[in-house]
């Protein structure tokens, strides 16, 4: 599916790289600290001001996901417009500060691109997270990254359903890109995961440089996994989980799950099968941080998105 239209965008001059949005996701914390303390050659590109930034320093200090509330859910309109004050939860104060520095969200002064670096305990590999199917700049970037790392794969997760998406730190920018790399335990730095994230970011910044130099990217299609449904663990009346992700499903992110396939295993060994209407592609399988968010995994459906050709204005 190609289009004769070329979408024009301003040069991406102001780019931010966020680490430590969750203080115990160590690849991003380490990379951003590295760039803030040492020379930034690795992330510099001609004509681009690249700003590394630790978004949740208190959580990083404690090596915990958050202090009061999840920063990566805190960028709601309500929070961002709340009167300033020290009584606000720490992360809401941080969200307002980040919105001031890198936004305001939705305005023309906002940063062009924000990359937010995350890790997951799920076996998701190098996943790119997209918040809009109509962001042709982002789609072209993701197409570029996927081609650059082939034959290694780089799944794209699309989360744009208003009932399922959330108000992320990166959403203050015009173009928001989530990098989610796993599996890595919280609080642990694995060398292979660290290097994988670094490589993805390198290609993303290369794309921006090429775009800013005037390269026109032809129309393309991008295969994505679109978030469909959140699946919680079975729980008892006290809210405690009574089953675990089944061994057949554990670590099988992005592989098809068909009705009848094992989904959970109770603590006394019984299998609970998946009983949806059709095949789905699960991901975020057994993410540590999502037990408290009532999520064992999400189901996705495969879609192919069409991206217009793009070039700079």
């Amino acid at each position, binding site marked *: 599916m190609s289009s004769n239209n070329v979408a024009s965008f301003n040069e991406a001059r102001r780019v931010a790289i966020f680490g430590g949005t969750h203080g115990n996701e160590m690849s991003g914390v*380490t990379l951003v600290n590295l760039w803030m303390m040492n020379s930034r050659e690795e992330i510099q590109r001609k004509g681009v001001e690249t700003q590394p930034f630790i978004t949740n320093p208190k959580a990083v200090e404690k090596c915990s996901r958050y202090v009061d509330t999840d920063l990566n859910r805190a960028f709601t309109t309500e929070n961002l417009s709340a009167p300033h004050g020290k009584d606000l939860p720490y992360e809401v104060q941080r969200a307002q500060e980040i919105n001031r520095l890198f936004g305001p969200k939705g305005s023309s002064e906002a940063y062009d691109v924000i990359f937010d670096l995350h890790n997951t305990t799920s076996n998701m590999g190098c996943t790119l997270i997209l918040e809009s199917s109509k962001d042709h700049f982002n789609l072209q970037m993701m197409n570029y990254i996927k081609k650059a790392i082939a034959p290694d794969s780089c799944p794209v997760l699309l989360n744009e359903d208003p009932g399922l998406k959330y108000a992320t730190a990166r959403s203050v920018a015009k173009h928001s890109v989530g990098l989610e790399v796993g599996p890595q335990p919280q609080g642990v730095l694995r060398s292979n995961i660290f290097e994988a994230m670094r490589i993805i970011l390198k290609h993303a910044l290369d794309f921006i440089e090429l775009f800013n130099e005037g390269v026109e990217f032809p129309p393309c299609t991008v295969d994505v996994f679109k978030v469909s449904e959140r699946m919680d663990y079975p729980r008892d009346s006290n809210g405690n989980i009574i089953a*675990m992700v089944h061994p057949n499903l554990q670590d099988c992110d992005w592989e098809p799950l068909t009705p009848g396939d094992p989904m959970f295993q109770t*603590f006394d060994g019984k299998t609970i099968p998946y009983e949806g209407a059709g095949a789905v592609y699960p991901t975020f399988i057994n993410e540590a*941080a999502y037990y408290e968010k009532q999520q064992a995994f999400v189901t996705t459906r495969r879609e192919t998105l069409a991206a217009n050709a793009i070039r700079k204005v």
Partner: protein
Amino acid sequence: MERERVYLPVLSRVAVCGGTHGNELSGVHVVRERLKEKQQRVDDEEDEDVVSVSNILTNPRAVQQCRRYTETDLNRCFTRATLSSAVSDRTPYEISRSQELNILLGPKGSPQAVDLVCDLHNTTANMGVCVIAYSDTDWICLHIFKYLQHHMSDVPVRYIHFDLPCREAYSLDSLGKHGFALEIGPQPHGVVRSNVYTYMKTGVELMLDWVRLFNSGTVFAGGLVEVYTMVSAIDYPRERHTHNIMAAIHPELQDKDFCLLRPNDPLFETFSGATLRYQGPEPMYAFFINECAYYEKGIALSLARRRSVEVPPVQMKSGLEHPGDPGTSEEEEEED
């Protein structure tokens, strides 16, 4: 020539403990499930046994918050000094709790202490199943280990010996007359992996099977077992002022727990891609490689020497033994 049989007292009381670190979830769920099963047996009036087993969540506050600990690491609070320290309302929760547990399961070192403590732990390191104990001559622990290793054939099972005298033993399992930690990984903290949970539940059940057989008079054959004795630990290279780590475990070492680390083998990879190598004088076995909770304790990996220990045949002391009893038979055969 086989060693002489050793007679040991009955193991009347066993404690199965989970949640000593509140985010090591296999143990939390094994204990909860065992409590449920026990209640079911009580309800069904099927609760007779040759051993009395207590299933305990040792750090309920940390479990509730899904954190390793709330104020201080509970599993370092069982030294004699900490157990006997004065408490006030400013005493950290875990110290008060260690003293409560000492009353419940101890007192440590006394005849009233439970016979066996099995403390359930998880690690982010790729260690498989490990039995960790302070002694390499505690025949109860070594026989339980031998039994687990024999019956759990699809996962490596190893014995780690922390060579510390009783008075310096700091962990929960030191409360019992015999005790060990059952440490299983890899599992991220805050996650329960079904395979790891199953290994842990199976390990506990096998341990109790062994105890029941032992208490029923079974003779357990002796033999050689391999023991890894902890010698030292290596920290990450750190920046002088911030104390932040400057390198990660080298990709060739990551997940290779119990490999033999030879002088000059890769140890760390700096963030600029340089390899830092092991400088020790002798080859050692590496374990607890990249355990999350040890970053704050200054440990990137631990090192052990390995040797074979000859474990004698054992049998429960019934008070009826005479010198010159027939030699041992195979495991699970009854004595005439």
